């Protein structure tokens, strides 16, 4: 693969830098980890944390999309599959104490072996499922 930096890749990288900056600010100033499944789970139980930091984070998180719009998005599946997938995402992330943000961004940034194995596991499982769904075969 020739790796020329297309505008699309620059945007992806730029977005990543912003995500990392958000995680850094939350850790440096508040001593908290930007793990979205954990923040959402606590907030959903009404546990907003000291000075409602979880609520503040979630409001900030959705604000840019609410103001600027989502752009072109395409859901890949209908409601029944989305419901099953959502259940697995919620159940699995709580069981593993983290998702793409908690393990994939913060955990890797913390040089955590736990998070590295978690990230390799969910990436492999996801890639396997996509392979089966899109290419119709068990490898």
């Amino acid at each position: 693969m020739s790796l020329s930096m297309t505008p699309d890749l620059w945007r992806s990288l730029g977005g990543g830098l912003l995500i990392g900056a958000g995680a850094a600010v939350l850790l440096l100033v508040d001593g908290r980890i930007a793990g979205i499944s954990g923040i959402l789970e606590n907030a959903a139980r009404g546990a907003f944390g000291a000075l409602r930091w979880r609520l503040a984070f979630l409001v900030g998180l959705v604000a840019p999309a609410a103001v600027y719009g989502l752009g072109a998005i395409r859901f890949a599946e209908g409601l029944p599959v989305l419901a099953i997938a959502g259940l697995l995402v919620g159940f699995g992330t709580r069981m593993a104490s983290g998702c793409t943000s908690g393990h994939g961004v913060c955990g890797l940034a913390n040089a955590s072996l736990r998070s590295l194995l978690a990230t390799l596991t969910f990436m492999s499982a996801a890639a396997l499922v996509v392979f089966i769904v899109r290419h119709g075969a068990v490898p």
Partner: protein
Amino acid sequence: MTFLAALCAGLLFGAGLLMSRMCDPERVLAFLDIAGPWNPALAFTMGGAVLVAAPAFYFVRKRGADLRGSPTTLPDRFKITPRLIGGSAIFGVGWGLSGICPGPSLLLLTGGSVSAVVFVAAILAGFFASSRIDAAGNRR
């Protein structure tokens, strides 16, 4: 200060997800589809995020405190459990089916689609199921 910093952190994080278009399920699935016309964009997003966050984690880990001096303990880095691997595999299956992980699911809610509402409601139900099973396990 705590509230304001968390708000700013959320804004940066949310702007990053939006800019990198992580909330487009088809785009995420294109990254996960290694046998198709592979799109490496998501690797740049994750790599960029880790690159910026790593010095902050190193600083707090060494110091044992955040910038304001509050003692800060980071999660254990080395304890590998069946729970960690099993949970991650279950999450991965859901992510691979939908192309949506928890952060982007919340951004998708702003579009007001039924699909987004169903997905987030299912995530919350999954949280609930997981905590019920934990509670049952603790009673034994």
